[in-house]
């Protein structure tokens, strides 16, 4: 039997010690009426060669668009993952370890998480990070709950172009607490409707204003300092969600005055993974550290004058506070956090900033090229953007056939927007990373032009 070492001889010996004749007898503790009387309706086990065939066949039903052939972003990006990262992330001890509750034998994982927390604080300009949340969306929900607990108010304000799934996750989490959130509209040119913000703040009970920079459509939030001021004056906190690489070109949320920072960290050395596992980043100031959900690793002293790492402030967590815990999170995304740590250590200071600039540069080159294509226009041409932007087809009905043609040529041509934002008919979100070259961008634009007009 796979992965079960016991032989019949072993079982006989153990049964004798236990004092029963058959293994079946051990299950006599289950009342007869509950015992399963038939076999599970699950196919028999496969030997290893057939296992590979089975899964290869299934995998062949997927079409993969690796690296330079994909322009899909929306929080999950195709960045290059160096070989050294894949190898180090797969060290047996690290991936088969449990949560480091016994610090004496977990100093490696604990230090890796401490380093992850340190990287997060650098990228977000914050002072305390957790050891990870499930993803950017649940990290946003955690941030909203934190803000509610800190301010003792209940509402969260979201600008229109936040990642639509972030709002959905917050809404689901709010079901337990019976709270609704409010959306802030934008003007024609994509800028936030400031009067709407002022009106919502005036209604009161606002725990937090959320800003996503760049937003789902890839452009920067304007007037951040004055937004910070207005929110803070009204007693609300500011939660800023970022894309990790934007910290290479933009000031950090901490430098800009945010109280809580959130991000989706998949871009940091994880494959696209069909959307999971992902990596939720959540960080705040030391002032709010006791409201921060999730595991936190601290550095401390040990016997013989040595230094080490432990999980700390555990009194916030479920295994101690039980029904009074701020969050129920137990297992998180530790290995993904470790992988992100190795990735950032490996690309280093120079790599990080240059990759950020390369993504930005590729996107701006593509935007120029696309501006020359008849039949489509950029959705918000006045807004400054980072590595992602939206275009709209002048004839929305053409989007589907154009996408099909491009898929047929082996491109994953970005994310359609109309189902998420009805005010963007024929909209397509395009993301660019360091995997693209000017040649691949030219080729894509050429094929797009042909599909659209040819």
């Amino acid at each position, binding site marked *: 039997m796979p992965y079960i070492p016991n032989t019949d001889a072993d079982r006989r010996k153990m049964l004798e010690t236990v004092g029963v004749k058959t293994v079946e007898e051990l299950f006599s503790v289950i009342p007869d009426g509950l015992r399963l009387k038939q076999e599970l309706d699950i196919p028999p086990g496969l030997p290893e060669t057939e296992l590979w065939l089975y899964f290869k066949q299934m995998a062949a039903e997927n079409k993969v668009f690796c690296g330079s052939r994909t322009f899909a972003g929306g929080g999950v990006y195709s960045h290059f993952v160096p070989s050294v990262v894949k190898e180090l992330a797969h060290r047996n001890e690290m991936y088969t370890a449990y949560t480091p509750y016994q610090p004496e034998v977990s100093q490696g994982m604990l230090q890796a998480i401490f380093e992850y927390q340190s990287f997060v604080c650098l990228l977000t300009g914050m002072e305390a990070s957790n050891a990870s949340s499930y993803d950017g969306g649940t990290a946003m929900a955690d941030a909203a709950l934190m803000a509610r607990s800190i301010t003792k108010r209940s509402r969260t304000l979201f600008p229109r172009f936040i990642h639509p799934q972030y709002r959905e996750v917050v809404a689901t989490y709010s079901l337990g607490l019976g709270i609704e959130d409010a959306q802030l509209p934008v003007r024609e040119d994509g800028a936030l409707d400031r009067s709407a913000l002022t009106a919502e703040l005036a209604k009161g009970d606002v725990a937090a204003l959320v800003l996503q920079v760049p937003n789902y459509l890839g452009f920067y939030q304007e007037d951040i300092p004055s937004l910070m001021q207005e929110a803070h004056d009204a007693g609300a906190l500011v939660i800023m969600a970022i894309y990790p690489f934007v910290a290479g070109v933009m000031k950090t949320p901490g430098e800009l005055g945010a109280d809580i920072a959130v991000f989706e960290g998949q871009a940091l050395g994880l494959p696209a993974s069909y959307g999971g596992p992902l990596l939720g980043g959540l960080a705040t100031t030391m002032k709010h550290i*006791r409201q921060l959900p999730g595991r936190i690793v601290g550095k401390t002293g040990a016997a013989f004058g040595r230094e080490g790492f432990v999980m700390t402030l*555990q*009194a916030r967590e479920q295994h*101690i*506070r039980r029904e*009074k815990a701020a969050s129920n999170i137990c297992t998180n995304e530790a290995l993904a956090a470790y992988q992100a740590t190795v990735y950032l250590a490996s690309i280093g200071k120079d790599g990080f900033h240059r990759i950020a600039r390369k993504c930005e540069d590729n996107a701006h080159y593509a935007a120029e090229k696309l501006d020359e294509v008849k039949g489509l226009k950029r959705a918000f041409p006045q807004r400054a953007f980072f590595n992602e932007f939206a275009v709209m087809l002048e004839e929305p009905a053409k989007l589907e056939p154009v996408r099909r043609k491009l898929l047929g040529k082996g491109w994953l041509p970005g994310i359609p927007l109309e189902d998420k934002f009805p005010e963007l008919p024929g909209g397509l979100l395009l993301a660019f990373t360091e995997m693209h070259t000017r040649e691949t961008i030219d080729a894509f634009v050429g094929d797009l032009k042909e599909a659209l007009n040819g």
Partner: protein
Amino acid sequence: MATLRFAKTHEYIAEDGGVFTVGISEFAASELGDITFVELPEPGAAFSQGDRFATVESVKAVSDVYAPVDLEVLEANAALTDSPETVNSDAHGAGWFAKVKPTNPAQLDGLISETDYSAMDKEAH
């Protein structure tokens, strides 16, 4: 000289010249082990006898602290934020939690006197 009276749940209320102070007993502090954090109520907050009005954290546990009588909080001991260990070293003195005003003074008579509390078999609770 302060008069201490105790609740069954190991909180004390001390009276010294008309000023009432609330904290946890030395016994409670030693049972909790090294205290790492104390969460105190806001001045102005009102509690009924038996309401949770503070919490004490140690490394592996969180404990609730209950109001020994109906009271209103006048001042919280800000020094405990930086030095929670004071509760361990001087629970009945510098480790006080809050200065309070009892809003139902008759309840004080129902509490346990210092002599009786010392004699009490605390393991039973």
